[in-house]
């Protein structure tokens, strides 16, 4: 199956949980925010949430930046 993550088509072998997907990408689920099909997901749901064919994910986290000067 295939999902779109951060604008990139990504192939997955099987339906896995969101948390598993994030860990597989080397990300700590505790430090990212995820939008699934436009809806922000609460962190507690990451483990239970199955990724499905055609889902659109946005994975976001903090980077350096911030001040206007």
């Amino acid at each position, binding site marked *: 199956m295939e999902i779109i*993550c*951060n*604008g*990139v088509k*990504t192939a997955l072998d099987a339906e896995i949980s969101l948390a598993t997907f994030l860990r597989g*990408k*080397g*990300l*700590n689920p*505790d*430090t*990212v*925010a*995820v*939008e699934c099909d436009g809806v*922000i*997901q*609460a*962190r507690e749901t990451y483990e239970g949430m199955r990724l499905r064919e055609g889902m659109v994910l*946005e*994975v*976001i*986290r*903090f*980077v*350096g*930046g*911030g*001040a*206007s*000067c």
Partner: protein
Amino acid sequence: MLTIAGRIFSSRLIVGTGKFPSSALMRAAIEASGAEMVTVALRRVDLNDPGDDLMTMLDRHQYVFLPNTSGARNADEAVRLARLARAAGAGEWLKLEVTPDPRTLLPDPVETLKATEVLVKEGFIVLPYMNADPILAQHLQEAGAAAVMPLGSLIGTNQGLLTRFQLEIIIAQARVPVVVDAGLGAPSHAAQAMEMGADAVLINTAIAVSGDPVRMAQAFAAAVKAGRDAFEAGLGVSGPVAAASSPQAGLDFLR
């Protein structure tokens, strides 16, 4: 002591985490600045090259994370970014930035006020970046902003306090802390802002791009402290000092 939304800060310097040559230097410079609040930005993760995670580089217990909504061009985009920041674990603090004009990056007053109203209702601690407009500061304050962040001059220009006269009015009228942001290119600019009675300043570029970010962070920390001390001690005044020996000045009618 600086108090924002009930939280006490012993440092009046807030620093940004962007534009540093390396993560190690960023960490060292922030440490040297003595800041207790740091601004951070939100971006999509590059899944092919996730790189360092800012949240693990800085101790979440040592610093209050102040995520910004940089890049937002209207209230809706800013609100979405704010919600994502909260979902990413930054808590309720938010530096609201709405900058539709990519050349000047001047904040949009109308959209900023709209977003403040929405986000305050959602429980965010909103610190809006704003032009140095005293009336806008009043409206933002009434909308529930926890502090206001007027600019000293255009972002990245290092021109210092070009908005000085409006800043004076904002500071005199404010019931929430005034944090001067943008345009502060040198420690002397920060000291001037603090001498005027600003509650805090926010610095990023001037520290991050200096030849020695750690020393520059120390310089800003010293300037902020000096400026605040001078403000609290009461600055002397320039100009002629009045003396009792002046002529009666037309007051002979008094009985």
